[in-house]
């Protein structure tokens, strides 16, 4: 699925990376905990988050997140947009809540990147 399709579905504002909207996105993850993003995401994922600060983009760059969408109308500051531009990470924003945004993307088949935690008695 293309980032442009995701942007359309979530009615996104594009803060930077307009020229990269044709980028393919294979899977997504959602978290406000950057440590969880570092621990459980995969290279090339889309990140949905409510954490609108520069640390989000630093984490995305280190964890090789392809694009970031801020949920529930969160606005990035200038430093966040500047760093995302520098690292060529498209930064978008949606008015949908985290739950709604994830639901909409899951419904159209965007796979999760974070592994489900297995129960202790679960095999395999």
């Amino acid at each position, binding site marked *: 699925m293309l980032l442009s399709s995701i942007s359309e579905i979530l009615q996104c504002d594009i803060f930077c990376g307009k020229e990269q909207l044709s980028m393919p996105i294979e899977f997504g993850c959602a978290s406000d905990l*950057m*440590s*969880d*993003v570092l*621990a459980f995401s995969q*290279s090339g994922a889309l990140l949905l988050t409510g954490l609108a600060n520069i640390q989000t983009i630093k*984490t995305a*760059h*280190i964890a090789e997140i392809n694009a970031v969408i801020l949920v529930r109308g969160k606005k990035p500051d200038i430093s966040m947009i500047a760093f995302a531009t520098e690292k060529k990470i498209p930064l978008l924003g949606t008015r949908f809540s985290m739950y709604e945004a994830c639901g909409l993307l899951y419904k159209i088949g965007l796979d999760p990147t974070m592994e489900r935690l297995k129960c202790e008695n679960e095999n395999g």
Partner: protein
Amino acid sequence: MDNTFLQTFKIQGGNIYNAGKASTEIKAILKQLGINARIVRRVAIASYEAEMNVVMYAKQATLTFEVSPSQISIIVDDEGPGIPDVSLAMQEGFSTATREMREMGFGAGMGLPNIKKNSDYLKIESVIGKGTKVIITLNVN
């Protein structure tokens, strides 16, 4: 690559907005050296978590980054409070982070476990009231 690459970085504690500079640079260097992308990502994550720990808890640190044909090592030697119980700090979810750290998306008790997950060898030496030395090694092949 025939030679060993060595570079040191200074990390300043306290300023969370500057956190990640060394790891970003390390990532760029490893890419330039043509290291496998999966290994680059693991090194960058381990280094970034170690850097965040310095920024959140220590006064300052020296990060020594070394790449040889067979392995990559990152040694973060800080001046800080030290870790009273290293095995407790290694447990997922154990955290002594402040509200400010948590507001930046960190301090959930994933740092050291995440460094372990992304390294082939991890050693932590800590002296209370003096500081902590984190030794991270990854095999290149």
